[in-house]
């Protein structure tokens, strides 16, 4: 991202805050991966390693009462919305202190009070749901926006297309994105679609689309901000394709031998944290010691979070039976 544009359009404090969340996201997920390798986490672990700029960038561009239906590699969005490392690690450990109290695992967490719609494994399922949230905002005349995404593979699903179409027809205040990290589990984009750029899909719905460097937090932030402003102004939905690379396997159990090593090497040089540090240095905002300081800060926070998650009790077997149905008091006002 051109540093003159960044200097003009992003405040120093916003950029520094995004840098902090990039580091916190990486640190939380590295800890989760370590816990998984120690056999402490049962079930899947899907990280945003090397893709942190996407969720950190877009979530930073939203207002607090906007709603996010995240992709499953959007840990940054949870942290920005106030999910603490302790809560998040408790979720991965299946503890009562996690947002789902052990009912669901890993990144399948949500909280309407913090504007986070719980992720569903069936990719793209939450895209029509986000369109519906935007529909509610439109019906009530509220100045709120929904922000929802899926991966390159998810854009093959009907729900992706049904959501794009419905939102475009009704000009709903929603922004859709695709994290194009080039692989859906082991399947490369070329077996997923006959086009090179996912953004092409938007044209069919009469929706503007944009390709964004998904490893550049400033680029993600500014593109999201523009699309959000348009949605808020009543100009309808936008589709953003964030180009990036999945640097780990689909889940931590997956060594991803199907990904050419040289591809990973090439993308390593474009690491989003590295890029953000280069940008901050070029802008003269901070120096190396600041990066070290933030590194120490997030390490401490994740340490404390891990401790609190360890202390959180496991749910009791009969808790299984609680919560199939909602009661009247739980409905959103």
């Amino acid at each position, binding site marked *: 991202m051109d540093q003159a544009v960044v200097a003009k359009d992003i405040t120093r404090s916003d950029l520094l805050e995004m840098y902090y969340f990039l580091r916190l996201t990486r640190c939380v997920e590295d800890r989760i991966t370590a816990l998984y390798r120690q056999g402490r986490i049962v079930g899947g672990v899907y990280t945003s390693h090397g893709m942190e700029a996407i969720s950190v960038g877009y979530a930073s561009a939203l207002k607090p009462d906007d*709603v996010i239906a995240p992709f499953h590699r959007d840990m940054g969005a949870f942290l920005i919305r106030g999910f603490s490392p302790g809560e998040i690690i408790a979720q991965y450990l299946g503890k009562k202190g996690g*947002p*789902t109290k052990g*009912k*669901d695992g890993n990144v*399948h*967490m*949500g*909280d*309407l009070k913090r504007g986070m*719609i*719980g992720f*569903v494994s*069936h990719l793209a*399922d*939450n*895209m*029509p*749901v*986000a*369109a*519906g*949230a*935007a*529909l*509610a*905002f*439109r*019906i*009530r005349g509220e100045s709120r926006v*929904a922000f929802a995404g899926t991966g390159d593979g998810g854009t093959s699903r*009907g*729900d992706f297309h*049904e*959501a794009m*179409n*419905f939102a475009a*027809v*009704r000009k709903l205040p929603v922004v859709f994105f695709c994290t194009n990290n080039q692989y859906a589990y082991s399947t490369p984009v070329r077996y997923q679609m006959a086009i090179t750029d996912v953004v092409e899909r938007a044209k069919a719905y009469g929706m503007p689309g944009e390709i964004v460097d998904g490893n550049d937090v400033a680029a993600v932030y500014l593109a999201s901000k523009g699309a959000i402003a348009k949605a808020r102004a009543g100009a309808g939905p936008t589709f953003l394709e964030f180009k990036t690379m999945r640097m780990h396997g689909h889940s931590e159990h997956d060594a991803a031998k199907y990904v050419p090593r040289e591809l990973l090497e090439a993308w390593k040089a474009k690491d989003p944290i590295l890029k953000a540090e280069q940008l901050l240095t070029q802008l003269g905002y901070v120096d190396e010691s600041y990066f070290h300081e933030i590194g120490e800060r997030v390490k401490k926070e994740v340490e404390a979070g891990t401790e609190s998650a360890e202390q959180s009790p496991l749910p009791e077997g009969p808790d299984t039976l609680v*919560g*199939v*149905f*909602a*009661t*009247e008091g*739980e*409905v*959103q*006002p």
Partner: protein
Amino acid sequence: MTTGTASQEVTYVEAISQALDEEMSRDKRVFLMGEDIGAYGGAFKVTEGFLTKFGEWRVLDTPLSESGFVGAAIGAAMMGLRPVVEMQFADFISCAFDQITEVAAKNHYRWGAAVPMVIRAPFGGGVHGGPFHSECPEGWFFHSPGLKIVAPSTPYDAKGLLKAAIRDPNPVLYFEHKFLYRRIKATLPQEDYIVPIGKADVKRTGRDITLITYGAMVHLALEAAELLSQDGIDLEVVDLRTLIPLDKKTIYASVRKTSKAILLHEDNKTGGIGAEISALLVEDCFDCLDGPILRIAPPDTPVPFSTPLEEFFLPKVSDIVAGAKKLGAY
């Protein structure tokens, strides 16, 4: 508007329209989505005149996109609205199966998000609809925790259950029987009322055999009961009205009284609701049973189109009479 005033006799379909109209007037959070429900008023004219009365943001014609608009209803419901979605035919609900069973049904259990929405699904045969316009898909959802399912058999229940469904904080599947739409009429109370979800209704009291059913089959059962009374068999007809949560109390009380049970439904026999109730009766009321539990249901085929085929497929009064006589012999 097709809705009559409350003091006149109304048909089953008019009762549904009245419930929607009254709930939309009472609660501005209630809005409608579906195919052709706006200017056209819906394939069965349930929402005729609603577009003019409530405007295009409360009566939304959707793209032909069941999964998309059910998903959108889930999102709107989580944001505090009360969407009522119309499936043009219950058969098309299969396109939205994933949204209903994976998203709507599980959201509250997984992460505490209530999804107060209603899906209206015109179901059932006897209308020459063929394999794609006659299905009874309730069994698919009966097996999915997190959903409530209702299926009224009378105009009174149709109106009261729809109102209760709209006011419920959970996703409710409302199966309305197409065959009954314009075939039955009733005078409804003038005042606002609901039929609580989870309460069965004994539509006919009897001593000898309990027949448990729902939807259009209730009327078949009542007809059979009259014939059987001439043969000295006194049939009790339990109309489930709600399939989930099942009113076990009413079912068990009736079976404990008669000691014999017939399950009747229009959905296919295998894995149907009758099979589940039969298993419950064996588990919980075995000590009082004086005979086998009978199921009367269509064969395990799609609903065929041609008149003799559809007549063969659907349960008949004579099937109930024969079943009751067989059971009466125990």
